[in-house]
């Protein structure tokens, strides 16, 4: 009850909790900063095996035409170097980069995967796009070839989110003429 003596129960609780929380903050800051010491890069291969463009109906306007691209690809990537003590998970994504006829610069994610353990960090995937791949002009006709890249986002237990690129197509991949059926 006497605040001048410094032995009051509340004063003690206050001091101890303040000390503990500043220790906690310092520890969290140290862990967050330690992420910058691990600057490992992931390495991988990406190959586009085939690509088809199909003319279909738009999602919102059933009587409007919308081209959809179907991309088949192979991915092999070793992401295990990215796992350190402050890696909670990796978000791996494959994106297409191209400039369309109206000179709109586009980046479209067509596939992604969440990697949560180091044991799953060797990624080998053969398949096709998970998300709809369409152009905002609704047509792929005459659109210049696209680049594809495999990127990742390292998500920490505490601290800063980091980004990187694991693989990229060496040559641009052209969009074929649209077909009416797959």
């Amino acid at each position, binding site marked *: *009850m006497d*605040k001048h003596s410094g032995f*009051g129960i*509340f004063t003690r609780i206050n001091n101890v909790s303040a000390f503990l929380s500043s220790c906690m903050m310092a520890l*969290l800051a140290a862990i*967050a900063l330690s992420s910058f010491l691990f600057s490992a890069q992931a390495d991988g291969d990406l190959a586009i095996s085939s690509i088809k463009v199909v003319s279909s109906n738009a*999602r*919102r306007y059933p009587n409007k035409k919308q081209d959809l691209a179907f991309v088949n690809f192979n991915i092999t990537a070793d992401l295990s170097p990215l796992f350190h003590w402050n890696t*909670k*998970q990796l*978000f791996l*994504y494959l*994106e297409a980069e191209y400039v369309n006829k*109206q*000179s*709109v*610069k*586009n*980046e*479209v*994610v067509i596939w992604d995967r*969440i990697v*949560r353990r180091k044991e799953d960090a060797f990624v080998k995937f053969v398949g096709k796009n998970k*998300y709809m791949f369409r152009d*905002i002009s609704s047509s792929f006709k005459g659109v210049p070839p696209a680049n594809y890249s495999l*990127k990742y*986002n390292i*998500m*920490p*237990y*505490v*601290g*800063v*989110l980091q*980004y990187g690129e694991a693989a990229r197509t060496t040559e641009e991949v052209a969009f074929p003429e649209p077909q009416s059926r797959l």
Partner: protein
Amino acid sequence: MFTEELKAFKRLGVRHILLQVLNFASVIASGLMIWKGLGIITNSESPIVVVLSGSMEPAFYRGDLLFLTNPADERYQTGDITVYKIPGADIPIVHRVLETHDVSPKNAKSREENGEKVLAHQRLLTKGDNNYVDDIELYQGLEWLERKHIVGKVRGFLPYVGYVTIAMNDFPQLKYALLGGLGLLALIQRE
């Protein structure tokens, strides 16, 4: 019961009460200054947000704290995690960018003026990591997300800390208990 407190009050006088009020006001004012200062540095109206939904699990859970920046001269990229607020929606949403479309302005002159013009025309589509479909249904009739809807991009992450605010919203009793407890503590400690 309160006679002693009242006596203490009288003994301390008006001056002391005014001083307490002033202290309280300066605590609130400095808090506001820090918040607004952070907002100016990060160019974001809300530089720290609490995750309110599970749509970004397992990356972010309810109650995790996110630190945002929104540099005016930087474009958004796929894989960035954005916080956006659609006019008419009451809560901001934390989702990842799935598509970006940089529409350049019609006349080349405005493109030369500064980079901002080009950035202003960026159209985005987002998706929650834990959702199966993209966010177009959340956009309230808009086709794309635009720069003006975006509060910021997630740069830093601190788990659990924001859960206090969620708990206070979900259980209002807790809020009153906490306030009452603090008030009581202040009353007891004064002597």
